[in-house]
């Protein structure tokens, strides 16, 4: 499959596909960060995670429409407000869901899967009723269009660079919150031993609710980023949920670094293969490789050594 290209061409292809992969990587990382918190830390299998992401995407779309209609002069900056709104909307919905549904199921992780699947069906139908079944696309502001010419044969889209920077910032923020702040310490204490954490005076119910909300909120931001690379429909989230779970499991569920590494390797493999094979075969090969590696190394890439 490499035969038809010269070495220089191949280099450019790898760099450009690599960069296309980086946008996918950003969405994966943002989705997986939320899931790593919810699944890796809390042990809840949130099948509705994709729908939380799509909520963020719809919020972004609505914000962009609002700016276009009422504040066209500020349109170039709508994305920053949209991100914050997406975070708040998805996070609030997440906290509501935790309060209504998830808190009854902490002892039955497999059942959270079924219940959140039911939730995802209801959310999908809700999106379909509210926003219509057609996919919607967001118009990007002028400064995000176009691309940077690095060399003659390599060009890099600006929105990709932007999404990447965003991802890096959010990842650093999450890492800081989880591993350096007092609240993150409480979260990890609750995860390790809910009863003991309660006994030393941590309000475990509150910590659970905010943790779940944070995970869902990050999914909302992922939805904002998602609007830049694809159009949003009621069932778009479902397409990403399996990939995201694989990213989290492949990285080693409780490890933040592992999540990033696995999101990187999966998205890069897929996007590089996509250039040479059809899209579906690239996806099949990538997923097969991930499943194969997981069979050999079930604990994932970066497993924390935890005594069970």
């Amino acid at each position: 499959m490499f035969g038809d290209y010269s070495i220089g061409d191949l280099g450019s292809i790898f760099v450009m596909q690599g960069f296309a992969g980086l946008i996918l990587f950003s969405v994966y990382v943002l989705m997986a960060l939320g899931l790593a918190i919810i699944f890796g830390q809390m042990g809840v299998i949130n099948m509705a995670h994709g729908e939380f992401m799509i909520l963020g995407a719809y919020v972004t779309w609505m914000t962009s429409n609002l700016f276009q209609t009422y504040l066209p002069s500020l349109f170039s900056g709508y994305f920053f407000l949209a991100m914050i709104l997406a975070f708040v909307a998805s996070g609030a919905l997440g906290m509501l869901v935790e309060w209504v549904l998830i808190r009854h199921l902490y002892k039955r992780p497999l059942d959270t899967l079924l219940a959140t699947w039911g939730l995802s069906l209801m959310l999908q139908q809700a999106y379909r009723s509210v926003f219509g079944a057609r996919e919607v696309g967001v118009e990007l502001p002028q400064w995000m269009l176009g691309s940077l010419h690095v060399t003659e044969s390599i060009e890099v889209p600006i929105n990709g660079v932007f999404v990447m920077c965003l991802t890096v910032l959010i990842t650093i923020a999450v890492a800081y919150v989880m591993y350096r702040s007092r609240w993150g310490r409480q979260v990890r204490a609750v995860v390790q031993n809910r009863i003991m954490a309660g006994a030393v005076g941590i309000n475990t119910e509150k910590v659970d609710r905010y943790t779940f909300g944070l995970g869902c909120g990050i999914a909302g931001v992922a939805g904002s980023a998602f609007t830049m690379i694809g159009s949003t429909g009621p069932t778009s989230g479902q397409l990403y949920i399996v990939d995201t779970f694989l990213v989290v499991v492949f990285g080693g569920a409780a490890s933040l670094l592992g999540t990033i590494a696995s999101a990187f390797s999966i998205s890069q493999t897929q996007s590089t293969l996509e250039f040479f094979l059809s899209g579906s075969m690239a996806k099949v090969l990538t997923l097969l490789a991930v499943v194969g590696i997981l069979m050999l190394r079930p604990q994932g890439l970066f497993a924390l050594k935890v005594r069970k």
Partner: protein
Amino acid sequence: MIINSRFFNRSELMGFIALAAVLFVILPLTLDVFRLNLVAKYLTYAFVALGLVLCWGYGGILSLGQGVFFGLGGYCMAMFLKLEASSVENTKIQSTPGIPDFMDWNQITSLPLFWQPFHSLTFTILAIILVPGLFALIIGTAMFKRRVGGTYFAIITQAVAAILTILIVGQQGYTGGINGMTDLRTLKGWDIRPDHAKVILYFVEVVLLFACIGIAQFIRLTKLGRILVAMREQEDRVRFSGYSVANFKIFAFCMAAIFAAIGGAMFALNVGFMSPSFVGIVPSIEMVIYTAVGGRMSIFGAIWGAILVNFAKTSLSESFPQLWLFGLGALFIAVVLAFPNGLSGLWADYVQPRIDRLFASRKSKAGWKDNSVADGAPAE
């Protein structure tokens, strides 16, 4: 009807007779052929639900990839039927006569090698059992021998379902792509499409279903079934008692796969086509839901679950397509939150005690003894 009282206890016997009466007598007498064929379609999912009772309810292994095995069984059957429907006379207008129409559309000029053996019905029937069985064996061995279980297993089986769907859709020339294999006509020269054939196929399916119920009940009552339950409750203790936990899990998973495959093959026969929309993640999870609604611990409950949920799906999506997804979603949440043992749990809690009281007041005079086998599970 003479049934060993040790094989079914009294309530199970009642469940058995009720199901047999409904499926063998009442439905064929009251429904027209179109509706009966719909029931036949629902019952194909009952095979899957039955397998999930063994694997999930008893073994505690939640597989989100049962659609894979349903699909493998269905595609094996459909490949045989498709080959028969694409005889040289039937496909004269194609540029290459004698190969399935979708291959011709995709510029494939000769039958691929892996299609060749499906000219033989014997091979096809063996393949329906063996292909999914072996596939499950490979996945199961790889996972359970390394002590991967629970949520990880569920996610990986789900990924397998995703992979297979993408593969089938992508390899249009070999599999028929997103449309699947349509226009299946005859089985060894016997037309499967007219009404009387549908009725015969329905009865064949019900007989097969009862055979599978028998196998499942047998497994449940032997030591094997006890070990499965023990493993679900206290895996380490079973392991320390010297049993190979992995092998029992692999067995339960393979049985579930084979049941699902039989269901898939019957689906291809009864419905007359097979497509990737019955393989992927969504149908796989729906299959789990049938089991959950019916009762994951009850063989008969799961079958009723498959029939009732599908019936509700057909009638609701016919009249209120908007409401169906809301209803299904709410059903999942309600089952998980409020009735973890599903319909059979409700039956065991509310209806069964009344019936028992009725029997007890009558039988106490005759000195009747219940030699039912206690298995710690609510049985319908």
